[in-house]
């Protein structure tokens, strides 16, 4: 699956798409400092996850990067263009998918895409080809001639993604793109984001559902109270975290753990959860279990990397 190139069939070198660079970006609404010092960079050819609790300023930051909000302080460049002094060029190189957006009731999905294609300066012919390939890719072809209002939430979400991609932007800003998508669509979205990154695009994606991002992101930017924060560097070898264990004979596993003096708890699925101090301990436990004849077949961290880092953020929810 790859984004069809409407004008050039093969990959070639693009000039000037240099990802996202934000320096000390601040933006307040009255007294509310929604974004209060955000510094990060998202390189091209990679998926960058934007992570933070509700109200941490993710959406505002994306609005700033989409060229819609003027930062009170700081600078940001997207695709090589300053979002304030080169706003139009910056907007043209960004595909922005907001967390919520509307559709034009009277227009069909195809008309909406064609409208946006022309609003981004594509020729009618290029717009038509682009729309057709996006519909194909996002499984919307059967809805192309239907009014957008009849779409389900997930289908609307896919249409919104198509809209953000219609001008083949070099920077993609996606605000909660997976919300409302069914599991299959989520997996396809993940693959799509990976493909886009492989094509050299800059993909910045925010989500609450960390498991969505877990398998797709290259970098993560953590936001808390409007600031980028450094997640506590977790050393995987020594950091304590929960591990999920399962064996062919669960009773033998529990007996082994009790004998070894390792505290354990039963998870809802009948598996066993233990707290281990990092990968070294896990490796030792596997070795000991196998040596003891326990038919261990599963050992995995309970939480994903992102979740670990997310939960390690100190400034969380007060």
């Amino acid at each position, binding site marked *: 699956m790859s984004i069809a190139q*409407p004008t*050039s069939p093969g*990959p070639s*070198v*693009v000039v000037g*798409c240099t990802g996202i660079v934000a320096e000390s970006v601040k933006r307040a*609404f009255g007294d509310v400092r929604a974004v209060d010092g955000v510094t*990060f*960079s998202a*390189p*091209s050819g*990679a998926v960058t996850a934007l992570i933070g609790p509700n109200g941490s300023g993710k959406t505002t930051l994306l*609005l*700033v990067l989409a*060229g*819609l*909000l003027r930062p009170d302080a700081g600078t940001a460049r997207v*695709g090589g*263009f300053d979002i*304030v002094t*080169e706003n139009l060029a910056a*907007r*043209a*190189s960004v595909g*922005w998918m*907001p967390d*919520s*957006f*509307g*559709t*034009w009731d*009277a*227009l069909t999905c195809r*008309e909406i895409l064609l*409208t*946006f294609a022309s*609003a*981004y*300066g594509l020729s009618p012919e290029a717009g038509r080809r682009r729309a057709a390939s996006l519909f194909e890719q996002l499984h919307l072809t059967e809805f192309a001639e239907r009014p957008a209002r009849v779409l389900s939430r997930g289908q609307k979400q896919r249409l919104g993604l198509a*809209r953000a991609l219609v001008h*083949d*932007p*070099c920077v993609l800003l996606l605000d909660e793109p997976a919300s409302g998508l069914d599991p299959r669509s989520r997996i396809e979205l993940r693959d799509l984001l990976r493909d886009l990154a*492989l*094509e*050299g*695009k800059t993909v910045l994606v925010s989500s609450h559902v960390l498991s969505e991002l877990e*398998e*797709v*992101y290259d*970098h*993560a*930017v953590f936001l808390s109270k409007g600031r*980028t924060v*450094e997640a506590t*560097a*977790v*050393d995987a070898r020594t*950091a304590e975290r929960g591990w999920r264990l399962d064996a062919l004979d669960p009773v033998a596993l529990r007996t082994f753990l009790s004998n070894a003096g390792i505290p354990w708890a039963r998870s809802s699925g009948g598996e066993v959860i233990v707290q281990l101090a990092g990968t070294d301990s896990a490796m030792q436990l596997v070795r000991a279990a196998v040596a003891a004849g326990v038919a261990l077949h599963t050992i995995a961290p309970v939480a994903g990397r992102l979740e670990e*880092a997310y939960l390690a953020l100190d400034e969380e929810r007060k």
Partner: protein
Amino acid sequence: MTTPTPSGATSASASVSPVAGSAPTRPGAPRPDTTTAGASASLGFLRGLWIVTRLELAQRIRSRKLYVALAIWFLVIGAVTLLMLAAFVRSRTSETPDSAFGPAAFGIITLFVLGLSLLVTPTFTALSINGDRDAGTLAILQATRLTAVQIAGGKLLAAWLLALWFLVAALPWIVVTTVMGGISPLQVVVCFLVMFVEVAIVCAIGLGWSALIGRPAGSTVMTYASVALLSVILPITLGFASVLTMRNDTVHVWNYAGDPATLTAQANDWAASGFAPSKRPDWSACHPEEQVMTRPHVESIWWLIAPNPFVIVADAAPLPSGARGNLETWAGRSGDPLAWLSLLTRSLSLPPSSDLDQCSWALMSDNPALRNYEVLSTTDGGAVVVDSKGNVLDTGSPVPRRIITANTPIWPWGLGFSLLLGAGMFYVAVRRLSVPYGVLPKGTRVA
């Protein structure tokens, strides 16, 4: 393990942790093409404008509501027109030709259509910006290469074209009124064009309010209030404020000192001669007396009604060439409400006359049935003598008569002011749509 990109990450590739099944950043790999023509290619102004216009029009044209509204509009105006024509036909006497009613019929329907347009037009734009913002369709348009001028202009153009539909739907009935005669095609065309400009101004006002006020109800109220201000509230204000302009003036009141019967007899001879100038009555007994009167000086505040849409259309309506020299005569003879409105506005703009003619009333001391002329009061307290056809006669009275002409138009001032107002509101809309946003209107979100 995850190394989140730290603040101010220097090297991107250093902080990458490969993810199972997916490739990390490949340093040195050629960046594939993106077809983003990006900064260089420009979206033509008119093309961008038309994208927005088409989008707005599609929303309206594909809704059945528009056609229902147009049908009701057509039927209401048609019903009023036919009723009015029926009333005219019934009320006319055998010797009055149909064309005597032509200007009145045309004027009434023109003002009626204008009034209805002022009621309908605000709905075309009063929600066009805050409504889109609520629907979540504004920000994604602003994020494209469309500029604020293109978005605001496209919306204005769409609303204007919609208003044109309504005016065109009313046009057949306006044309029907001209079958009675006395109306030139030029009059129809000019009135139509001025109304077309007026609705554009209303559209721009609505657009400005919808950009300024976040709540749709608020912008709707303010748009209607603005239209009401121009067409109703300012005239009422003028009425009350005129009392405040009262001043003591010394006025020459001309009275007839002799026997009125003598003058009336002379006047009847004059009438019998076909109003020959040589047979005019003898006014030697008519003398002025100085008298102090408290009178309003509306001429200092008359401009309050200059931007009134009805006044603008009425004053812009062309008159028959013979009527321009004396508006009062024409208005009296034709009953044309447009001429009356224009006359009223012009008379308000003039200072009250310093002479008061009470001599002319002495011409009426006989049996009115025998007389083929009539004395009429004028709006400034004087009097004129008119023949049975409504022509103002020069009686030779020593009191200077004031004739209000339609030779210099006053509507360009009102229309100019209204256009400035509309342009100002359009500018407000453009400013409010310009991204990146500095200050957001209260209570609004970007998306």
